[in-house]
């Protein structure tokens, strides 16, 4: 899959160096070590909460494409499929904290949790306030366990947007953390992978290719209906909430197919719920066969202001 003749260790640095050459002035390479690299937005953090995202490499525009104007302030990326190290996260946060504090946003995998947790501790020791938010939207993982045990999936793209908008609206660290925790509890994602030869659909395949929890032979409409059923069952949208629907194609599915699928999902969802918006795009683009990851966020009036308008990042709009 990865074609790195010169080794995986310096992968994130090469990646980011390419990004800087493509978009001069948009980002700054803050630091890079053997096992991770850090990219800052060139839009400085001034008297507001800083938002730092982090992840193992190789996710698609999320994570580093989500750094910039009206998006996250920095990203720390590890070697491919490896959480970035705690020290790099700590250093980025230290450099960006204006005194208003720092949000550490990541997908809930063990390595990412451990490193962000230690970064939070290192920051606390030096008097910086940081709050970590592990995103756990994947309903395919840890089924039957508590929500907090689940892994993160594509919902983090929306969470990043909310955090960035709330920071720019001047909210305090605690207010932003509470907002993100609410979103986290009202969000669900499922991976729907499809064997196109036989129309066999698998629901709930994991991020690291863990098997799904449900399989059947069905067409697009039925698949859309089942997807919406599984996701709304998880978040039980309230009547005053409006739903953000996000459709993220896996690598073998195209721009066109994501919209065709989106069309079915939209119809199926709107039959019983109010839709806030549908986002279609390759936000998180892990190599993952043919299919989609589909996310619902049930947004109340407190969350909705931070989901207004369209933000353009590198290779996506959300």
């Amino acid at each position: 899959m990865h074609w790195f003749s010169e080794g995986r260790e310096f992968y994130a640095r090469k990646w980011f160096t390419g990004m800087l050459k493509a978009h001069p002035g948009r980002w700054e390479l803050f630091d890079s070590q053997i096992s991770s690299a850090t990219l800052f937005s060139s839009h400085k953090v001034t008297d507001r909460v800083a938002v730092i995202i982090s992840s193992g490499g190789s996710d698609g525009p999320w994570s580093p494409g989500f750094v910039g104007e009206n998006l996250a302030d920095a990203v720390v990326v590890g070697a491919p499929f490896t959480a970035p190290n705690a020290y790099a996260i700590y250093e980025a946060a230290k450099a960006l904290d204006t005194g208003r504090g720092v949000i550490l946003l990541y997908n809930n995998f063990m390595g990412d949790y451990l490193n962000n947790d230690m970064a939070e501790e290192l920051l606390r020791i030096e008097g910086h306030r940081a709050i970590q938010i592990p995103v756990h939207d994947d309903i395919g993982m840890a089924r039957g366990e508590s929500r907090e045990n689940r892994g993160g999936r594509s919902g983090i793209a929306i969470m990043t947007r909310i955090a960035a908008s709330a920071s720019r609206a001047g909210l305090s660290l605690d207010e932003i953390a509470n907002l993100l925790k609410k979103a986290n509890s009202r969000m669900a994602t499922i991976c729907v992978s499809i064997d196109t030869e036989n129309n066999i659909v698998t629901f709930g395949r994991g991020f690291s290719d863990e098997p799904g929890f449900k399989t059947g032979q069905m067409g697009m409409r039925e698949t859309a209906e089942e997807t919406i059923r599984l996701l709304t069952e998880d978040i039980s949208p309230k009547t005053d909430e409006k739903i953000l629907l996000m459709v993220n194609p896996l690598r073998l599915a195209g721009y066109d197919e994501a919209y065709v699928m989106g069309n079915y999902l939209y119809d199926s969802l709107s039959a019983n719920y109010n839709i806030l918006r549908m986002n279609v795009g390759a936000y998180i683009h892990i190599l993952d066969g043919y299919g989609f990851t589909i996310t619902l966020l049930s947004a109340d009036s407190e969350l909705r202001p931070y989901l207004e308008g369209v933000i353009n990042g590198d290779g996506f709009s959300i």
Partner: protein
Amino acid sequence: MRFADTTALKIAMIEASRAIIAAEPELTRVDSVIGDGDHGIGLIEQLSENNFSTPYDLFHAVGLCLVKSMGGSSGVLFGTLFISGLEEIKDKDSLNGVDMAAFLSGGIQGVIRRGRANPGDKTMVDALLPAESEMNSALKSTDDLGQVLKAAHKGALSGVESTKNMVSRLGRSKNFREQVIGWPDPGAMSVSILLGGLANSLSQD
């Protein structure tokens, strides 16, 4: 060795590092099956390039170096193992078996606090807890540093053995429950290699 000064401890750390590096292919093989194959890469070669004035400084540097250079789960956990027990050896110029046991116990508690693993979850904790209890038993009859570390190593080895039959309940490998049975946990293996390397170096006279 009843006790060791900073220099002896540094030599022991380097020996332990070499043992881990030598075991890397084996660790990688184990981790590839149940994890992502990046365990044990680039551990602590930098040690030899620096001088340290106390055991505290030495282990603090070891801990930060692990956190800084590794990424993934094991870097931060091994870092925690070396950093959380530092208070126990503050102001000491050398460590005997009692000091070492206090230092390691502090580290083990730190790993458990951060990682929230329970015994039986098939993690390094399943090597660390038996190491701690063997160490404590040994302390009843000796304060010899080498003897205490040998006991810890023995405990860790039996812990590694016990992880073979465990089902992962934490981290990436929990999602491949069936596939991990029969394989030891790579983090537990690293712990036993680390303690073995230290014991080896510090039980010579």
